[in-house]
């Protein structure tokens, strides 16, 4: 699968998923269990992506400047900074650490 194929396929699947909510009988999705699954899936995936982008270097675990970005972002979020500021601070943190070390 080339990257373009993946982009188109993932885009169509996303649209089909949204349409499914409008098309399938409400009782299939509108129940406590499906709400829990959708919610848990979202939290698990975002946590996993955070860990992967912080520690993975190919198939190895690696500690580097990205750890500073994680710490600074957590502090900023705790202080209720808006999303865009959190992202910029994360970039600054890892750029600065890489520059100093």
């Amino acid at each position, binding site marked *: *699968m080339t*990257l373009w194929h*993946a*982009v*188109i396929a*993932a*885009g*169509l*699947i*996303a*649209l089909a*998923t*949204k349409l499914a*909510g*409008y098309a*399938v009988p*409400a009782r299939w999705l*509108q129940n406590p*269990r*499906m709400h829990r*699954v*959708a*919610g*848990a*899936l*979202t*939290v*698990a*995936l*975002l*946590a*996993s*992506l*955070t*860990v*992967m*982008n*912080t520690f*993975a270097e190919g*198939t*190895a*675990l690696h500690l580097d400047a*990205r750890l*500073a*970005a*994680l710490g600074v*972002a*957590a502090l*900023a*979020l705790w202080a209720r900074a*808006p999303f865009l500021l*959190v*992202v*910029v601070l*994360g*970039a*600054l943190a*890892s*750029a600065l650490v*890489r520059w100093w070390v």
Partner: protein
Amino acid sequence: MDELSGKAPARAGVRLSGLTPAVRMGLSIAVATGLYGVSFGALAVAAGLTVGQAMALSLLMFTGGSQFAFIGVVAGGGSASAAVGAASLLGVRNAVYGVQMNHLLAPRGWRRLLMAQLTIDESAATTLSQQEAAEQRRGFWTAGVGVFVLWNAFTLAGAVLGDALGDARRWGLDGAAVAAFLGLLWPRLKGREPVALALAAGLVTAAAIPWAAPGVPILLAAAAGAAWGWWGHAR
């Protein structure tokens, strides 16, 4: 009639500017969300996508979390199919929003397709925050169309900017990706259970990274999350 009575000024002001509470909320969410399309565009290019591919994701996929997941897997060296898998699983919640929007707004014909494409965290949240049917409708369209237009405009700006910046690591864009994922996760960590789940998913990922192909650890964490939701206690 009320407009002529003494207590009219506030209401007349609203009428004049034409902005109801749902429209105001939709617009402010659209601006806040649209702006961080810049970070998506820049990170997509840093992950190795072309400007065209970044735009295709924002136009067609149009759901921020899944888009970040897609480029997150690609940036980590994961396969294209792992990127599709992670993005698709993260989009499952949009189906749940779809059921709620369909129930509240009951679109017909071509509006249903358009409404489905605009069904994301922000438009669903704006709709659900309103009590009155007409306000729910206005809130949905304002947030949905507003985020779509701004998200795509700023994705383009970010992608072009990212292209010009060159070496992503020197500018700390890998750190920006880490911060973006934590920023998407953070608002969902309300209460003890989601925190425990996030830690468990993080541990599963870290444990799987050394022996699984890139991208696969994310799918394992997703499976663990789905199982947690399926068998977890209702509270």
